[in-house]
């Protein structure tokens, strides 16, 4: 024999229903519930329903949302990856507020919506016994039902008596339906909870993995280009190099022409520096520092090292060197000549060309013309 779920008493007027509630409640037969076509003021108090805990839940979750947003933003912008944006300090709380506000609203509304539907209303709720009742059509239109529901047992006869005594116009007994295990609110809540926990766990694992194993770089776009590493042969070009050599005679921007090729090739180079006092001062300084020790202060090959050193340095004032083009002297400074080492590493372009001017001055000083004396 199926168990009784509830006895419905039907009333024609909301006032009759409201008057019946305390009488039926006093009999204490089971859980009291009402079904009406529209909300009736004072029903909550009459049924003695507890205050909904939703407000408190929303407040707690809202505050939690604000704190979450603040904590997360503080952590990403001031702790984990501090970057100065727009000239503001990384921990600028002002910039956090709009997001805190949004997350507060997000947490609060989700708590209010889902908490009401799933937690308190216990939706989804298929096949409530009252929906199967014959009176259902009238209840949604113009009748007001008071139900005594099994909690967990119900004495159907006593319930009928009580409702009739309270003035119910019609009565209906509802059978207990077998519970439907499909898609209950418990199931939905657990699923959502599991998804939330899985998301948080996956985030934490991902973060840990990236921090602990840098072999999984989060952003490797520039690193993963199809290019050759250092010392790797390139099959595309005949010489096997990846980078192309510049065309011969190429001058880098901002640099003076360099002496490449043989000393004779360098004849065509002309001294780019003007013959100013500053240039000669620099040339003298360079010559004294790098050249005079062998070539002598006058450039005549009688430097202080000559005695101790087997080789005989060139007498720069000799006719042969006076006939040199500027470029040839420059070439000798860059590449060295005979026993003379290259000065390329020690002197920059400007210093070399200044030294060339100074050598010219020395040559002229030792072979002065009549008009120089005037």
């Amino acid at each position: 024999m199926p168990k009784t779920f509830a006895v419905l008493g039907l009333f024609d007027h909301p006032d009759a229903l409201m008057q019946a509630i305390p009488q039926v409640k006093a009999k204490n037969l089971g859980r009291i519930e009402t079904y009406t076509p529209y909300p009736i003021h004072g029903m909550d108090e009459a049924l003695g329903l507890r205050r909904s805990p939703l407000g408190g839940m929303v407040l707690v979750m809202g505050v939690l949302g604000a704190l979450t947003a603040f904590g997360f933003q503080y952590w990403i912008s001031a702790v984990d990856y501090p970057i100065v944006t727009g000239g503001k300090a990384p921990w600028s709380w002002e910039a956090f507020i709009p997001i805190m506000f949004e997350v507060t609203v997000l947490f609060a509304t989700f708590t209010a919506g889902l908490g009401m539907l799933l937690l308190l209303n216990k939706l989804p709720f298929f096949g409530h016994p009252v929906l199967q009742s014959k009176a259902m059509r009238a209840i949604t239109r113009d009748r007001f039902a008071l139900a005594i529901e099994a909690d967990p047992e119900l004495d159907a006869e006593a319930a009928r008596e009580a409702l009739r005594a309270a003035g119910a116009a019609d009565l209906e007994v509802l059978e207990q339906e077998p519970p439907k295990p499909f898609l209950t609110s418990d199931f939905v809540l657990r699923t959502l909870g599991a998804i939330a926990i899985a998301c948080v766990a996956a985030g934490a694992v991902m973060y840990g993995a990236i921090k602990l194993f840098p072999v999984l770089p989060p952003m490797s776009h520039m690193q993963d280009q199809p290019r050759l590493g250092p010392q790797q042969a390139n099959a595309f070009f005949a010489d096997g190099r990846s980078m192309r050599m510049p065309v011969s005679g190429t001058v880098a921007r901002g640099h003076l022409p360099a002496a490449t090729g043989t000393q004779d090739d360098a004849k065509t180079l002309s001294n780019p520096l003007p013959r100013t006092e500053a240039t000669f001062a620099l040339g003298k300084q360079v010559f004294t520092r790098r050249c005079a020790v062998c070539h002598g202060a006058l450039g005549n090959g009688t430097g202080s090292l000559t005695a101790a050193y087997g080789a005989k340095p060139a007498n720069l004032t000799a006719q042969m060197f006076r006939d040199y083009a500027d470029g040839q002297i420059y070439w000798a400074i860059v590449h060295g000549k005979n026993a003379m080492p290259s000065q390329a590493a020690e002197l920059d372009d400007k210093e070399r060309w200044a030294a060339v001017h100074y050598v010219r001055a020395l040559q002229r000083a030792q072979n002065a013309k009549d008009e120089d004396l005037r």
Partner: protein
Amino acid sequence: MTTQAPSSRLLLALAALGAVGVVASYFVTGPERFWANWIVWFLFLFTLALGCLFMVGIEHLVAARWSVPLRRVPERLSTLLLPVVPIGLIALGAVSVLYPGAKPEALQNPLLAGKATWLGLPFFSLRTVLSLALCLWGLRVLVMGSLKQDLTKDPAYNLKARRFAPVFMAIFAVVITLLAYDWVSGLMPEWYSDIFGVYLFAGGFLAALAATVLALSHLQAQGRLTGIRGDHRYNLGAFIFAFTVFWSYIGFAQYMLMWYANLPEEVLWYKIRFEGGWHTLTITLAVIHFVVPFFALVTRDAKSNAARLKWVALLMLGAHYLDLYWMIFPMLGKGVLFSWPEVAFGAFFVAGGLMWARRSMNWGEDMPVGDPFLAKGLEFHL
């Protein structure tokens, strides 16, 4: 009257004492401080009275029913607009003392010289007089009409008020914006904030709600307006709660945009208020204008709790004064000035305002008995 005699005499004495202090302050502490105080109280009373009128107007605009039984309270409080008229006309004396745009030096500043017509005293006065006149028109249609309806019981007033309400909303928007631009941000004419009128509206409407709550609790303590229950109070509480949030939203939005852009002419307003004693005052304002009322009213029970509402309303009136003080007084200099002139002004205007408000509580019936929707409003359930 006889039962209230002692407290009435106290108010009168307070107002008289305050008046002596007010006059003395002009000669002792100088005209600038006198006018700053005067403007604070002019704006306080004007925004409060205008906020009350707005409350009446919005009820007619949206055909609200719940507020019909307590409508007489904001209606009576909005008659404060009558004393505001002379206060506002006297306040025009401040224009050439405090407002840089109306001083002769303004012509040397190319920014101000270009706006000399707008900022100068003649047009400034014209705008103020027009604003006051428009408000009086609103008062006449909405409040005088309602008082007359007590006797005639003619529902034509409701139709007339409903047609007038949208017009009044436009008047209200223009008046409160002009009030904010002329009287407050006019103290710093290089400074701009498009939302400043809304900011002043949020504070003023909050003050109006607070005054309504206080007047309501005063009347109910005398056994009047007994038809107003927790459900009505809940709505008032919810309004106060909502507008503390709205005020902070506008205030913070205004601040954050300027803080982000960091333009010299914009941040100056906040730079002044983030230095020295003003910084403490800025934080205090945020706490008492937002944090305290927010948590005091956040629960459902608190919004309909008469005692809780009463002290929150008192706090909100104080917060509105502080808000206006915070807007106007930094113009006088770096230090926070608060001593006997401010107290005297407070005594004079609070006592005077209270005397007017108490008198006004006897004008007309306690509820708009001629309004056909009164019964509906009394039945109001949440």
